[in-house]
């Protein structure tokens, strides 16, 4: 019976305050969607980092005479210098593996990439001698590249140390920006949602003040008075969560699985696993955003 009283009140409350509830639902919907996008983007950043990190190597180029990229190189790297570089690499605990690439191997690679005909005969734009010898290093933890890079950069005979991570830096920066922008927008909208919920409760309490007063006087329990308000909030929150979940699911299927992952294969992409993790978060955050202010405010407006 109490249940029926509560559901009647709930239905009336939702109907009477319809425009405010729609506003709450929409705000929750957009803020939770953005929060979800932020979470998925940051998962994507982790995914990309893992994927690229496995392939990222540090390359140490050794000096050639008149090295165009390195004024400190005055002559070809000596055997001693090369040995010294190798010793440093060997001794570094972060190094998983490394190999040496000779001028000839490098030349083969260049010919492979650009076509061999430009590099043969008398008019060759480049000979093996122009290319740097190099060490290719794979790290145990691709994120801990700074130690070895700085240890090698200033050694004699080193032309330059290239870290692929620097080259993919802009991608990371872009992902980070996307992540922070969507979190900032989600944060602002969550605040808006909380304020809207607060306003809705205030209006609902005002609209029902006579009922509430009578309920208090006849001795209705505080729970029974507050319950319709809490349930109203829960219902609007759940609708918001469902809508945001739908948008994120569509984003996962059409944006990522059928879209980006099909066309761009320079990285691994997130999928349904990450979607469900994200959905779990917004399914908890959404009701919290709605119910916590409701509980706080009903205590204030409906002093039992």
């Amino acid at each position, binding site marked *: 019976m109490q249940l*029926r009283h509560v559901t009647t009140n709930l239905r009336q409350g939702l109907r009477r305050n319809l425009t405010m509830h729609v506003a709450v639902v929409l705000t929750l919907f957009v803020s939770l969607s953005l929060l979800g996008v932020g979470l998925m983007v940051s998962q994507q950043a982790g995914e990309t980092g893992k994927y690229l990190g496995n392939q990222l190597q540090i390359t140490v180029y050794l000096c050639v005479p008149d090295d165009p990229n390195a004024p400190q190189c005055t002559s070809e790297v000596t055997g001693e210098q090369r040995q010294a570089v190798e010793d440093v690499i060997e001794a570094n605990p972060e190094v998983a593996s490394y190999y040496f690439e000779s001028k000839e191997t490098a030349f083969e690679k260049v010919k492979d990439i650009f076509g061999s005909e430009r590099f043969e005969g008398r008019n060759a734009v480049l000979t093996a001698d122009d290319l740097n010898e190099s060490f290719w290093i794979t790290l145990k933890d691709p994120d801990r590249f700074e130690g070895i890079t700085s240890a090698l950069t200033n050694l004699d005979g080193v032309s330059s140390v290239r870290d692929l991570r620097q080259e993919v830096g802009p991608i990371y920066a872009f992902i980070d920006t996307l992540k922070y922008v969507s979190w900032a927008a989600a944060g602002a909208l969550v605040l808006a949602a909380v304020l809207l919920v607060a306003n809705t409760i205030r209006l609902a309490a005002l609209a029902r003040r*006579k009922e509430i007063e*009578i309920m*208090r*006087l*006849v*001795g*209705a329990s505080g729970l029974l008075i507050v319950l319709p308000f809490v349930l109203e909030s829960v219902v609007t929150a759940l609708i918001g969560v469902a809508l945001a979940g739908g948008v994120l699911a569509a984003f996962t299927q059409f944006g990522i699985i059928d879209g980006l992952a099909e066309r761009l294969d320079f990285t691994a992409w997130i999928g349904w696993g990450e979607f469900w993790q994200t959905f779990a978060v917004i399914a908890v955050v959404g009701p919290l955003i709605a119910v916590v202010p409701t509980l706080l405010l009903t205590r204030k407006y409906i002093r039992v």
Partner: protein
Amino acid sequence: MIRFDKVSKAYAGPGAPALDNVTVDVDKGEFVFLVGTSGSGKSTALRLILREARPTQGRVYVAGKEINRLAGWKVPRLRRQIGTVFQDFRLLQTKTVAENVAFALQALGRSTKDIRRVVPETLELVGLGDKADRMPEELSGGEQQRVAIARAFVNRPMILIADEPTGNLDPTTSVDIMRLLDRINQTGTTVLMATHDHGIVDQMRKRVVELEHGRVVRDEASGAYGFSH
């Protein structure tokens, strides 16, 4: 049933206290008028009984329990033993007469079966058996007050508190309302009525407690509004 033991109540700010060292005892089944001018402390006394406010000093007992010390969550249980009627009726305009009365029971979680049985009985008791489906605005002031009394009494409380119940009614209608309250009192319900309606108090010849500036200046077993000679 209701006992004020050296009760004082001061509101924040300057000025005399609303109640000043009041001691009154109301027995079960009594009918008591609480009289006095506006600001004499009548409404404050009623608010203390309902635990809408707490005394600054002294103790208030309702049905043998000291209610100042009552935990907040037990207050609803206290209020279930007290029916309340106001000068301005306080009916829900969007509900019919029967729904208004039923609302009090729904708010307490009573079963539909109970409600269907008790509401018509109570409307019959207050003489509105044929107006169950009317809206409050279709009723006269006296009828609206009967609905309010039905709502206050439908849960069969031990105590009925009425704050100026005839304040908005003409003398003839007021007499009808008093007869109704008297009938409720006959069922064993303690009635405490705040009023400054001289005619009614003089006519009913019930116990009168008079307040002036928050003090009890008179407590007569069967008094009139003014001092009896």
